[in-house]
């Protein structure tokens, strides 16, 4: 029968783990530097406002109106135009991935415009690329109005105008949106990978068995092993915070206390999950595959980082509640952009707390299961 939990022993295990980490500069550098690098690079890469779109135009009219139409497209600043003679297949530029949209101006376009008759123009958009298709479609309305006012002097003066106020991100800066979410995703992956691999290695080379053969309680092992990595995770987040604030200029409207609390719970949850993976697989290669599978794609695609959760079918909206990343994205966006207070973040924080506790409990039970015969 094992002794009750002794925190001193947990501390000793933690200390040994710290030594380990310190001696392996590769892992240390990775755990700290990597999140930073990732957020920097991809924060820079992500820009949802599409521009420099290749547009091929077929002008069968060659009138003043058609030229003005083409100018309207050009002056929008979104498109790079290229005129082609109308021979062969009009969808050829799209088939050959040379353009993302095709504009077809019919022969009598100019005449119809001048007579104020209905003058349709075909716009074919490449529907295979989700990151650009919808956005291009969205631009069409605005360009159509501009074209009408330019060509036919028709200004559609609306009866009612919408005056939008963009809250929390007035300039619709992509980075403000993506960087906090990216931080969550990167931290999640690193956390789960770190603990899964490190502990799996100990299972594989037998040192875990050795540890378990002593009076040490599994809870002490878990606390001892997780603690240094949680600190590492928090440090990484601190670095990301500075990057977000001072390089990307993202405002921080909320409470730092909640932010730290949220980060702590989040990192703890993923590390506990990594631990669970390592206890279950006991082998490094499997642990690796498993962690990548759980930690990478689901977090990128289902955490609300890019694709909003509200878009998902109801079943999946409930399913994503099982991912700590989904809750953390709420917390981190709430803290940075919305200035959310405790009442508003209570649910996400509690969810993460629940999950961290759940994973640790299950991990402890699985540890014990293999010690007791």
């Amino acid at each position, binding site marked *: 029968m094992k002794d009750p939990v002794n925190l001193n022993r947990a501390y000793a295990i933690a200390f040994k783990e710290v030594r380990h980490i310190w001696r392996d500069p590769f892992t240390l550098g990775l755990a700290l530097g990597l999140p930073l690098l990732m957020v920097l690079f991809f924060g820079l890469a992500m820009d949802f406002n599409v521009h420099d779109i290749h547009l091929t135009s077929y002008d069968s009219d060659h009138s003043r109106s058609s030229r003005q139409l083409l100018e309207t497209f050009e002056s929008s600043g979104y498109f790079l135009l290229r005129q082609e003679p109308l021979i062969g297949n009009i969808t050829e530029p799209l*088939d050959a991935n040379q353009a993302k949209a095709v504009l077809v101006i019919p022969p009598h376009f100019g005449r119809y415009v001048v007579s104020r008759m209905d003058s349709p123009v075909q716009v074919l958009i*490449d529907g295979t690329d989700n990151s650009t298709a919808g956005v291009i479609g969205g631009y069409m309305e605005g360009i159509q109005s501009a074209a009408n006012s330019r060509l036919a002097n028709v200004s559609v003066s609306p009866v009612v105008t919408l005056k*939008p106020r963009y*809250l929390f991100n007035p300039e619709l800066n992509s980075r403000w*949106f993506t960087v906090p979410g990216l931080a969550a995703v990167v931290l999640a992956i690193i956390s789960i990978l770190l603990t899964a691999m490190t502990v799996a290695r100990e299972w594989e080379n037998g040192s875990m068995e050795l540890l378990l053969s002593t009076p040490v309680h599994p809870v002490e092992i878990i606390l001892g092993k997780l603690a240094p990595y949680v600190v590492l995770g928090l440090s990484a987040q601190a670095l990301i915070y500075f990057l977000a604030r001072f390089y990307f200029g993202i405002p921080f409207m909320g409470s730092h206390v909640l932010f730290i609390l949220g980060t702590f719970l989040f990192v703890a949850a993923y590390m506990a999950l990594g631990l669970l993976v390592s206890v279950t697989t006991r082998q490094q290669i499997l642990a690796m595959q498993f962690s990548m599978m759980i930690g990478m794609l*689901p977090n990128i695609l289902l955490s609300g980082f890019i694709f*909003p959760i509200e878009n998902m079918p109801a079943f999946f909206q409930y399913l994503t509640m099982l991912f700590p990343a989904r809750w953390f994205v709420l917390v981190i966006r709430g803290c940075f952009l919305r200035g959310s207070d405790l009442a508003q973040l209570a649910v996400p924080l509690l969810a993460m707390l629940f999950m961290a506790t759940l994973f640790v409990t299950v991990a402890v039970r699985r540890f014990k299961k293999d010690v007791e015969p």
Partner: protein
Amino acid sequence: MKMNTTVMGFFKKELVQTLRDPRMRIMLFVMPIIQMTLFGIAISTETRNIKLAAVYKPNDFLMRRIVERCYSSQWFIPAKIGDMNDAFRMVQSGKADVVLIAPEKGLTRAVGRGGADVQLLIDSSNITKAEAVESYTQAILTQVLGEAFPEKNQNPPVRFVVRYLYNPEMVTSVFMVPSVLCMILLMVTLILSSSSMAREKESGTLETLLSSPATTTEILLGKSLPYVALGMAEFPLVIAVAVYGFGVPMRGSFWVLLFCALIFMCNAVALGILLSTFVKNLQQSAMAGFLFIFPAIQLSGVLYPVENMPWLLKYCAYLDPIMYFVNLLRNIMLKGGNLQVVVVNAGALVVMAFFAIGIASRRFHQTLN
């Protein structure tokens, strides 16, 4: 063609070691299908379930029409704001994504006087959502106004007829499923090949290999071909899920697609081996794998457009096998396959694979010093 005994021996060994553990078999053949299904169903780029609230006086009939039309559309749902009356709080608390605010004296009256504004408070922490909200609201507004004031209808001459080719309904799974397929295949094959080499290093069995007469070529081929084979075994499964499960069209030649898949697998495995020459043990190979795969996913052009990236990252995107293979998948499956596109993208993958193996074999020393 004479079969090289050593390479065949490796083939057998790698397959035996990999497939022996049932958990690994599940990881290789079941998990990708589950993941694809999950993501294919869950992800949608079409914004809906937008929580809308409105602040207006009960007798403001025009405003009420607009709000009701919003709710009955496919995009908006009523926000559960209880008895909150601070519009800002509504959005800030997350209970509403957008709040419509009628003018002081009511919209119906304001219109009568000519010129009226409706304020829109939009939660813009998600940009695509914010822009969608604005355009949907505008569309509904135009619709309602058009019905309420038919005489004010001016038909502007220039009219765009917009059609989305290859995927007219803009079904998200049609573009997401091939992309996810590609990511999963890369992850699995790259990690398999790199960790197999890393494990030989870590356990010391690499020394045994080096002390045998096996040449570098034989060892590298022996460590890569089995994983290309495994990847190719997975490919039909995931394609079947895409085509029969999700209805992704298959407009081009399946054989061309298969051939491109083969090239992609070779590429992924070559990269895995290259990565393994930089690491000493399995843990490092996991980190290295992550270091490559995460950027590969980000820069693939699937989540957000490559055209927008700063030039440095754009160049990195040109080294991204996911980008090329997604191009191939989309072009062949959705557009029927354009010769130039296929040659360029497949060619890029081939060139990359050659470079990777070349560098790997140079780094692979037959001696330990």
